[in-house]
């Protein structure tokens, strides 16, 4: 995609890599079977530490999570035996769950869709040549580099009913009548809070998405677009028929990574409303975190449900990955 990936060797199955010849040829004829066994262990020496780290931080937590979801654990953390499936049934019986699920779907769908559409425009804009493009590009990475948690805090602050600059601005426009009114309390009402938080989620997702699409655009030969224009196609037509299809691999990668990030998004909701009032601005992620404080078993059950969804997204992603590769071949 970008400069780097272009430099990559890109290992298609057929082409043998020159790699193994690095091994010094002079090694003396030892017992062949023992040597082969040792040689088979050699890769472990190099990739073993990475596997160990992944095992501790990713694989073992998955096992623990599954175990915990079937255990009966008191709020004080004492395990008092098996719970069977009761953690799951408790979660599913929770009267807040339907609302939380609906909000999760809205949260993910709205944020990702808006992000992708705006990013297509931004990538197109930042792909043009203009003086100071470098600095303009640096400016748009700000929300990507900064901690999402801190960005969310800023938005909590600018939406304060008594003095937030958003309200100052809307007051000047005449849209907000009085400070400290119910109307100015954007985060106090679940509906408007949720809309604002989707906005913040879009804001922090735009830089990454735009950059992926920009990298994709750079791999689209400009001549193709020019040729279509010369042949009489309108700008929009040429964009839709030439640029967009060629942009598909980058678009799909950005889409799936965004789905994952937004589904797992926690700091925005946590900093701006804590998922409240009640669970009225919670997604499944916030709900799961909240359960962890009291019923670890139920939190684990909720995690399993979330995790299953995540695995589905990963599988789609891996599928896509293969699809893109075939496409490229």
């Amino acid at each position, binding site marked *: 995609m970008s400069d*780097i990936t272009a430099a990559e060797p890109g290992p298609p199955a057929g082409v043998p890599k020159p790699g193994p010849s690095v091994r010094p040829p002079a090694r003396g004829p030892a017992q062949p079977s023992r040597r082969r066994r040792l040689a088979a262990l050699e890769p472990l020496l190099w990739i073993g530490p990475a596997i160990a780290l992944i095992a501790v931080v990713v694989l073992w937590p998955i096992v623990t999570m599954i175990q915990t979801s079937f255990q009966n654990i008191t709020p004080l953390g004492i395990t008092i035996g098996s719970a069977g499936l009761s953690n799951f049934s408790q979660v599913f019986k929770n009267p807040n769950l339907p609302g939380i699920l609906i909000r999760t779907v809205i949260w993910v769908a709205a944020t990702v869709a808006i992000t992708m559409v705006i990013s297509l425009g931004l990538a197109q804009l930042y792909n043009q040549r203009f003086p100071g493009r470098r600095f303009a590009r640096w400016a748009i990475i700000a929300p990507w580099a900064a901690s999402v948690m801190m960005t969310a805090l800023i938005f909590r602050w600018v939406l304060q009913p008594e003095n937030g600059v958003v309200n100052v601005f809307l007051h000047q426009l005449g849209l907000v009548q009085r400070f400290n009114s119910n109307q100015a309390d954007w985060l106090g009402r679940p509906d408007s809070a949720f809309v604002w938080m989707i906005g913040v989620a879009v804001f922090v997702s735009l830089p990454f998405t735009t950059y992926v699409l920009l990298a994709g655009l750079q791999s689209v030969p400009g001549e193709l677009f020019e040729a279509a224009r010369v042949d009489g196609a309108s700008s929009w037509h040429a964009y839709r028929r030439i640029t967009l299809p060629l942009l598909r*691999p980058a678009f799909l990668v950005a889409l799936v990574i965004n789905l994952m990030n937004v589904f797992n998004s926690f700091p925005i909701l*946590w900093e701006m409303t804590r998922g409240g009032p009640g669970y009225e601005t919670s997604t499944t992620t916030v709900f799961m975190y909240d359960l962890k404080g009291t019923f670890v078993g139920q939190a684990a059950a909720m995690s399993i449900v979330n995790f299953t969804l995540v695995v589905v997204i990963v599988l789609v992603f891996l599928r896509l990955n293969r699809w893109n590769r075939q496409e490229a071949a």
Partner: protein
Amino acid sequence: MAVRTPASRKPGTRKQAAPPPAAARAERRLPSLRTAIIAAAAYIVAVIFVLPYLEMLITAVRPQRELYEPNYLPHHFAWSNLTNMWGAAFGITSAVRVSLEIAGGATLLVLLVALPAAYYTSRHRFRGRGAFLLLVLATQMLQPTALIVGIYKEFLDFGLLNLNPVWSLILVNAGFNLAFAVWILNAYIGSIPVELEQAAMVDGSTRLGALFRVTLPLAMPGVVTALIFTFIAAWNEFISALALTTSTSDYPLTVRLDSFIGQYTVDWQHLFGASVVATIPVFILFALIEGRVVGGLTAGSVK
């Protein structure tokens, strides 16, 4: 910024070789108007993206008395906010120290673990190579958030949390940023001809010697990118730090700032002062690797 397309070319340069003067003038005027509109739109977007962080800075230097005044700019700037927020009562100093320990430790661990793995997978075909890379890719797609209950329970069961949560957080942050480092190092090492290493070995260098004296220096841009990226990600990380720390003295900066929210009075100016201090170095570091990050984030899925 080693690898970059000739993107920073001046907009005025024309490709065509000297068309008739009149036509040239007309053509030059039209594109430059277009360029001006594009540039204006791009600058406006750029300002919008920076605006929230400007507000962060402005609030950080708002005087206490003017904190809740509904205006864009305070009448006075209290630059002293930025110096007196370091007092022990606010706990920022220790929080920054903890954040540095976590981010520094995770960065070091990622380098130690990812470099051999990236080197070996880039230079050798072996049984299980594909499975290993798939495992790394799956790790990249997962996030601490998805596994947080399991991570919390695991470290609780092993008693690691009673020790010092910094160790647990180093492990977690290293684990979830490993994939990025593996991809980017893999790409850089793969682009360095094996012949260079072989030449060094013919000259009497050992394999490790060739790795450290030939390959590693050439892969430096990749190494630096991986280091900076891991450091920033660990520095900004929130949910596992929130879940794994319980006492105030163990809080990294993100959790420390979170702990102020919901208190009866929030010292917003100090809170954002600390955010400014935490964010500006990150902006600079990120700008350094900006051109290479996308490669590391998507390489695994594009290859």
